[in-house]
């Protein structure tokens, strides 16, 4: 289940905002895209996830497991995304947030078993009934990732997910996120401006703005 | 012998007719059973609303008719609606089955053929009505023609605070003297409100050189000459009115609070019992009494009518008949209930019915029938518009 970007470029009012991107990300691999602010990193992610703003036009193709994502709507792509804000739903408890992501039509008991297991892996056992806003920044980040992974994405996009965390937390969360992705064996695309965020051995792509 | 035969035959004919008549009314009562009558009437007085509610309850029990009081702020709204229905060719199931009406509104409905009837002559209690009163045959000088059924009488009375006014005015010139001495303590509602127009009609009837002119259609050429004394009077009066004549109360109802708060010392009303009623109700203090001018004051009547497109005409007629009954009229005349004078001729009433009226308490501030005397007739209906227009030109700038 690899994620491929073939000659992908995004046009705004006729002119491309960065050079065409060619990328193949294999399952379990994390590719990082770096570049200065405003170079279009987030726009690129929105194109891959399927929520590109109407002001932009897409050129090239996005292939997930060989299938062209061209005119596939967002809800059908199964490409997850993680933001720098955890965006946990404030009106549900942690358990509710996680349960929302579970697709399979299984019983409540089975669902809570899955949730329990997931919380264990993050070291947050017993947090189901907690109010999201009572959690610390690091805890919220972990829950957010768990939630995205519970939805069994075929690929995961990460939009500067660690930028709001402080240094000590960053390292911890980073390793947690990377290990989970490897465990789930899905391709991941990370966008950041912090070189320290790049995983060991992962490919790094610099996004360049087209001149002229 | 021949004469005897004639009398005998006419008696038989009469009994046939009354039988047929009674049969006719029985049919109407039968048809009326189960009908819903939407009675559109002014809803500004809780007392009147309560009375209508009582009447509806009695009629429900006795005749199986359901009366729904549709409260109207201004009966003109209702006329308006019926007109729209006519324009839309809604000839049945009209929204109004019976309405409380008189004067110009009646004229409008009659002229635009919005009324059902004539019907009041068929109401069994109609024969008790005091048909000697001209105002029951001519509504603001427009012939009634049995197109509306009488409900109550009205006469312009003035009210005053006995604590503040020792000797009340006897006529318009006295009123002017009073106003000069007590600046700002008298007023009348803005034209074209009902009470306001009546006040200037009253003033005109007192000041005009020949009151008989008023019973005739207004003549444009002589209008200026005939009404000169009225405008002179008002020109003199206005600077001494409440708010110096720059502001007028919107309606007669507003004047009650003004009197209560002593913003004015003299007010007016169209119901001789309304002051007693208000005292009873705590709206006015017990020091208020009523009076009329020595030459008499204008009086008229109010009625109920049935629109052409009602689909509960029988129910409406039965209800209108009930409103004419001695029981309903006596209760209506009771100042502790409403205090609206009856349209029935006391002389025509049988013993027990007459007793009902004898039992009606006299309002503490109400003038006796003798004191009220014979009311003055309304001027010809054409005078209303002419006077209103001229008043607006002069004073509504």
């Amino acid at each position, binding site marked *: 289940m690899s994620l491929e970007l073939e000659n992908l470029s995004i046009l705004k009012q006729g002119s491309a905002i960065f050079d065409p991107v060619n990328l193949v990300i294999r399952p379990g691999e994390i590719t990082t895209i770096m570049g200065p602010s405003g170079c279009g990193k987030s726009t690129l*992610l929105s194109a891959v996830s399927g929520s590109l703003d109407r002001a932009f036009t897409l050129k090239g193709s996005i292939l997930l497991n060989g299938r062209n994502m061209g005119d596939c709507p967002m809800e059908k792509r199964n490409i997850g995304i993680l*933001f720098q804000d955890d965006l946990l*739903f404030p009106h549900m408890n942690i358990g509710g947030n996680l349960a929302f992501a579970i697709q399979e039509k299984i019983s409540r008991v089975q669902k809570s078993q899955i949730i329990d297991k997931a919380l264990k892996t993050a070291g947050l056992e017993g947090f189901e009934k907690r109010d*999201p806003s009572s959690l610390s920044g690091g805890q919220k980040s972990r829950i957010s990732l768990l939630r995205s992974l519970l*939805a069994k994405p075929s690929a995961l996009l990460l939009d500067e997910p660690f930028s709001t965390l402080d240094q000590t937390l960053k390292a911890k969360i980073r390793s947690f996120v990377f290990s989970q992705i490897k465990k789930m064996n899905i391709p991941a695309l990370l966008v950041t401006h912090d070189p320290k965020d790049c995983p060991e051995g992962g490919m790094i792509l610099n996004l360049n703005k087209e001149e002229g | 012998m021949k004469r005897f035969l004639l009398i005998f035959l006419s008696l038989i004919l009469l009994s046939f007719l009354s039988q047929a008549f009674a049969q006719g009314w029985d049919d109407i009562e039968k048809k009326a059973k189960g009908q819903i009558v*939407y009675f559109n009437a002014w809803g*500004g007085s809780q007392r009147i609303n309560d009375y209508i509610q009582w009447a509806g309850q009695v009629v429900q029990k006795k005749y199986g008719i359901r009366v729904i009081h549709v409260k109207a702020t201004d009966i003109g709204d209702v006329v308006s609606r019926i007109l729209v229905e006519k324009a839309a060719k809604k000839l049945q199931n009209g929204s109004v089955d019976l309405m409380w009406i008189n004067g110009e509104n009646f004229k409008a409905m009659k002229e635009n053929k919005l009324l059902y009837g004539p019907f009041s002559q068929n109401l069994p209690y109609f024969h008790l009505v005091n048909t000697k009163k001209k105002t029951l045959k001519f509504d603001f000088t427009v012939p009634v023609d049995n197109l509306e059924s009488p409900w109550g009488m009205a006469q312009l009375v003035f009210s005053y605070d006995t604590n503040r006014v020792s000797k009340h005015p006897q006529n318009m010139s006295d009123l002017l003297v009073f106003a000069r001495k007590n600046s700002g303590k008298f007023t009348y509602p803005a034209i074209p409100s009902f009470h306001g127009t009546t006040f200037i009609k009253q003033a005109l009837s007192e000041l005009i050189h020949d009151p008989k002119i008023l019973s005739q259609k207004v003549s444009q050429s002589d209008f200026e000459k005939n009404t000169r004394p009225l405008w002179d009077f008002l020109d003199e009066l206005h600077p001494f009115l409440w708010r110096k004549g*720059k*502001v007028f109360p919107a309606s007669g109802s507003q004047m009650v609070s003004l009197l209560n708060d002593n913003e004015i010392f003299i007010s007016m009303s169209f119901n001789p019992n309304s002051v007693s009623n208000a005292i009873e109700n705590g709206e006015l203090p017990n020091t208020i009494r009523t009076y009329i001018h020595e030459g008499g004051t204008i009086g008229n009547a109010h009625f109920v009518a049935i629109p052409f497109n009602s689909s509960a005409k029988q129910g409406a007629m039965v209800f209108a008949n009930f409103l004419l009954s001695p029981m309903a009229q006596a209760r209506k005349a009771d100042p502790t209930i409403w205090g609206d004078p009856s349209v029935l001729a006391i002389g025509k009433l049988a013993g027990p019915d007459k007793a009902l009226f004898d039992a009606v308490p006299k309002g503490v501030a109400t003038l006796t029938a003798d004191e009220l005397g014979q009311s003055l007739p309304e001027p010809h209906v054409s005078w209303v518009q002419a006077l209103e227009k001229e008043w607006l030109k002069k004073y509504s700038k």
Partner: protein
Amino acid sequence: MIKIPVQDKRIIFPVFVMILFCTTIVAGLIGTILPSLNYLPVIGHTQVSLSVWFDFFSYPGIQTSIFVTLFSGITASFVVVSLVFLFISVSHGNALWKFFEKILSPVLSIPHAAFAVGFGFLIAPSGWLIRLVSPLLTGFNTPPDWILLNDPAGISLTIALVIKEFPFLIMVTMGAMGQLDIKKTLFVARALGYKKEQIWLKILIPRLYPHLRLSIFAVIAYSLSVVDMAILLGPSAPSSLSVLILKWFNDPDVNFKLLASAGSLFLFFIVLLSIFFVYLLERSARVFLRPWITNGNRSSFVTLFKPMISFTGICIIIFTIISSVILVIWSFSWQWRFPDFLPATWTLKFWAKGLVSSFDPVMTTLFTGGASAFLGLLLTIGCLEYAVNSNQNRIGQNRIGQNKTLQNKAKNYTKYIHYFLYLPLLVPQITFMAGIQLLLVIMKMDGYWITLMGSHMLFVLPYMFIALSATYLSFDKRVTDQAIFLGRSYTRVLFTIKLPMLLKPILFSFAIGFSVSVAQYIPTMLVGAGRFSTITTEVVNIASGSDRRIMAVYALIQQCLPLIMFAMAIIIPKILYYNRKGMQV
């Protein structure tokens, strides 16, 4: 088989609303334009001519009437807008502002007529303020003959309009503020040395103004065409134009209907002209105010007036609340004459009577209000969802606040919907309702509850949209995107994530819609064909009589209904989300 994605299907909401509003108003206008040209066959007028307009302009006192209408309407609008801007500038963020945020809902729920009755009694020469100092300080044993109420120039009406419109505009501005980054702007500009008041006046309010524009137009339209407040507080000889038109409609002489039609068209014309004038003012202000905005002055005269402005704002709220208090006292009084400050004798009679007789009208009001607000909510959310998704603006930003630029695109779209939604607020009710009445009677749709509810919804929708759109549109798109990925279904996300998160603003908007329905008088009267009495028709009816006490009871019952809804809008989220700190904001 062409697959239509969900987004496009949502277009039925704004389209439905546009069609509903356009047809209603156009139909109504035709029903007014024809009689104004002397075409009203039912009373025998079939010759189209301009004679009616001639009569209109030559009606005695018409010039004064028009002048008074323009004076009170435009002055009130200018004063209230300026006052709102100044007040926000000096009070935002401080204790007074926080107090305002809490008190806004109940104050907004007070119906216009009830307020006018109480306010009238407060300032009348026989009213409470004078009674407070009589006869001790003034020696008055009878009320002075001063023109404090119903003055010929309409000043008392203007003041009352300002008091009533002030909370409404504050509410709208509060909603619009969510669209801007207030904190950041204040921080940056204060660091540059500007005082808070100046930042508001020079930067924030000009940026907020486009969001407020249509609401300001609505205020202008209302001030020019108000009827109930004008009857109670405005001049009587001559009255303002709207009151005159109403008198003509109800005049026994049916020919006056033609005059009424011409008058109401003229009133509409005045409204359009005033709105256009204000729009021109806005455009020229952009040019003329620029030097003032960029002059770099660090001191502002407004700072001197700070206490006065705050005081004025407080007075407005106090006056509004006192007007209700007065009604409460009246409702329990038996005898209350001048110069007594409190009633001489008290009673419960009127409450006993009022509660019983008002039961049926209250039920009608609750059902009609609830239904029209609910339907209004459906349509509002439908239109907003369409606006939000029509541009496919989703993720792509990674800084808080930056996704606002994409939301601006949504706002462009909603601008066009806005115009249609505001239509019922900009055309004076009396202008098109009479035409609607005729149409409904022809179509045999008058007198049905559905029609009544529909006519209420015409006015409920715009206000609900005003109340909800700003907050709804600033909902973080990334949350919905995240949720759509997780939940796989747009409708599931809408009903389990987005709407529950927006519960508070949604309930608030519902309460607003409900109170708008409660306040409707002319639609109930004209469309209901006398079959429906709401608490408001009861209040207006009893107000045409003389008994202030029973009037106060009805007015207070009328006031309670929206108040209950607002209370629920506050309590329900608290109960549902008592243990969710993130939902307490």
